[in-house]
Structures are given as structure tokens and as C-alpha cells.
């Protein structure tokens, strides 16, 4: 059995060399890493320049979500356009896969870089992204813009 050789002394040297390199810790609340552009965190709504939603209520994201955590409650207005009562997003159950964003044909949602998701109340794990707004109607097929209800 070969024991007590140079390998052990070398181990001492290497650990000391790493001490000299200094700690690699990023002290989180004070220092933060920059996230790359593609980092996926919570799903967030995009808005038009005038502040109206880009969501047309097509329900593709709801169908696409593998975990069924997006729920859109809608009602039809008299003129046949859609009205979004609630766009509910269960952030606590979201696995940030990005499939809803990839599927959205109207570029109405994106994966934000909001990663501090701990909350004190379980109710905060469910977010209402849109509440009581008219669904966006693309200007191309219909030229009229819905006035806000």
C-alpha cells in the first residue's frame, strides 16, 4: 500500500493555490449575476404602445401549456368581439418551459427575467395577468379599434 507520498503534499499546495485565487461567491442580495437574454422566468404580458393588451384571446397558450396552468376566462361582447375577464397564470406551478411563448401567434407574452418568486402567501402564487380588458383585435382584418369598456 503506497501511502503518505507526494500526492498528499500536492493536495495541500493545490488547496492553498485555490485559496489565493480568492472566493468565487456572488453575494446574492447585494451582487447579482446578469441573466442572459434567453433566460426563462415568469410569463409576462406584452402591451401595445398605447397600453392596450396584445392578447387576442385565442386560447392557444392555454391549450399549449403542458401543466394547464394558464386559464383564460372570456366573455363575448354584443358586437362579437372577445372580452378577457381574467387571464390567470399559476406562477407557483409554472415550470418555465416557454412553450406558451413559442406558441403565441400574436407575440403577446414573453418570458421575463423576474426570478425572485418566493412569496409569503400561497394566494400570490396565482397571478391575474389581465383583468377585465377587451381582447386585442388585429388592425389588419378589422380596421376599427375597440374603445375601452
Amino acid at each position, binding site marked *: 500500500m503506497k*501511502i503518505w507520498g507526494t500526492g498528499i503534499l500536492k*493536495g*495541500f499546495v*493545490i*488547496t*492553498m493555490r*485555490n*485559496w489565493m485565487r*480568492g472566493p468565487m461567491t456572488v*453575494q446574492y442580495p447585494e451582487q447579482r449575476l446578469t441573466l442572459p437574454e434567453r433566460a426563462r422566468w415568469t410569463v409576462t404580458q406584452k402591451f401595445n404602445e398605447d397600453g392596450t393588451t396584445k392578447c387576442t384571446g385565442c386560447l392557444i397558450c392555454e391549450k399549449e401549456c403542458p401543466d394547464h396552468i394558464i386559464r383564460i376566462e372570456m366573455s363575448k361582447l354584443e358586437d362579437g368581439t372577445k372580452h378577457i375577464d381574467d387571464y390567470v397564470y399559476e406562477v407557483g406551478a409554472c415550470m418555465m418551459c416557454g412553450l406558451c411563448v413559442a406558441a403565441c401567434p400574436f407575440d403577446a407574452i414573453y418570458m421575463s427575467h423576474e426570478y425572485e418568486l418566493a412569496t409569503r402567501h400561497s394566494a400570490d402564487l396565482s397571478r391575474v395577468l389581465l383583468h377585465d380588458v377587451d381582447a386585442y383585435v388585429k388592425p389588419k382584418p378589422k380596421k376599427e379599434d375597440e374603445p375601452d369598456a
Partner: protein
Amino acid sequence: MNAVAPIAIRILAMLGLLLVNGVVLIYMLRKVLGRLHIRIGPNRVGPFGLLQTVADVVKLLTKEDLMPDSADKWLFWIAPFVVFVPSFLAYLPLAFGPNLAVTRLDTGLLFLLAVLSLIPIGVLMAGWASNSKWSLVGGMRAAGQQIAYEVPLLLSVLGPVMMAGSLDLSKIIEAQKNLWFVFPQFIAFIIYIIAAQADTQQTPFDMSEAESELITGFANEYGGMRFGFLFLAEFSNMFIVAALGTALFFGGWYLPFLADNPIALSLGPVIFIAKAYIGIFVMMWARGALPRIRVDQLLAFAWKALIPISLSWVVIWACIQRLVLVR
């Protein structure tokens, strides 16, 4: 009454030193290991995390004193003290400066090693009384290991004892005024550090704790201040073997080339403790750098390598001293 008071003060001072040592060493261990692991270590509680250990002590004190249902109640209760008391007793014969010791015993070294060898009993008690299989294995390992490494530890200190011609630690240190024993006794010194590491269950010989195998072994079922005592005893043992190494091999309170300097002499205790802390630092460094040896290899190493070598060194040195040095 007047005769008792100074002794009581000395004992209390030793207890204070032990507790301060514990607090400082835990902080030091975390910082040293942190830096070796390219981390920062504690830095949130107080400036530079200095109050971290204090916070831990408060935490341990306020924890519920849990006892496993099936534990052997009496043994479980007493085991931490059986571990802790010998490690406190071992402080008594240590000489920190000229005439600075709790008690000066002619057989100080023998006393120290004798009380140190009581510790395995406590560890075995803790392991057995917990009624946990992991603790039992840990306790058994500790017992086997300490019995195996007591022998080379004892044999390795015989060299300095022969050179000094005394078992009194103060006399051994005084004999090193001109020549530290580490130079003539280098082989004994190597055996001493290995055996001392093993005897105090430090990495790479932390068999009884074996984080990745037994998950703190014998201390598995302990919580609160009971665990605190086991923990404290471990750090106090670290200090004892480092201090003993300083006294036996590194000239205690003497500085090289300044042995007669009155300022250096008046700083004796500081020098002594600083040397001991350097030794502790090396022990911590080993903890950061080395993997753990396996238990059968450990025992084989003690019985097949360390004991024969140390035994032959004792014989060789006895011959050298008798035939060459003392005419």
C-alpha cells in the same frame, strides 16, 4: 480558603480558555475551510461574521433537549460529559509559560495522555446509548481507532521525554531552549502528527463521524447543547494535541534565537498559543485537502506501520542517546 482561591481562579481561567478556544476555533474552521473551498465563510452575523459562533451557541442552548425514545437514558445523558470532562482535564498540566500552568505535575505528560484516552469511553457510550445503528457503528469505529492510535501516540512522545529526561511539560519545554526537539526527533514528530490527527478524529481519520458514510456517527442522535458539548470537546481536543505538539517539538514559549530575550519571554503564553494555532491551522488545512481513509486501512496502518516504526524509533533513539550523546 486562601489556598483554594488561586487554584479555583486557575481552573476557571482554563475553563474560560477552553470555551474561548471553542468559539474561536469554530469560527476559524469555517473561515479556513471556506477559503480553501473558494468560498467566503460566515460573513453575515457581526463584522466579518465574527458573531456567528455566538449565534450558534445561542441556537444550541435554546434548542429542545431531545432524547430518543429507545435510548439508554442514563448513558445518553452522561455521555457528552464523559467526552467533555477529560478534554477539560487535559488542559490542567499544559504549561503556557514559565511557571504558568494550572498545576505543575511531575508526570504531566502521562496525566494528559491518560485523560485523553478516557474519551473513547464517552464516545462509545454515546454511540451505544443512542440506540441507533449508525451511532453504534460510529462509536465502535471510534473505540477501535483510538485504542489503535494511543500506542503510537505514546511511543512518539517518548523521544522528547528521553531528551528532556522528564515527564513534566515545563521541563520538556525548558530543555528546548536551544534546540527544538523537532529537529532531532523528526521521525517521532511525523508519527506524532499522524497519531494525534487520528486520536482526535480529524480528517483524514474522521472515521467515527464520517460525514459521507455515517453522517456524524456517534453524535447522530444528539441535539441542542448536548451536541454542543460533543462538538466543543472535539475542538478542545484539537487544541490540546496542537499545544502538546508545540510543547514537545516546537519549544513551547521559546522563540528561535530569542530564547533569552526578556520581552520574548514575557510574551511566552502568546507565543505558545500562536504556535498551537498554527498547528491547528495545518490540521484544518488537511481537512480541506484530504479524502478520508477507510477504516480497515486505518487500523492496518496503525498496527502494521506506525507502531513498528515508532517502537523502533524509541529503541534507536535510546541507543543514540546512551551511546553517542551521553557519555
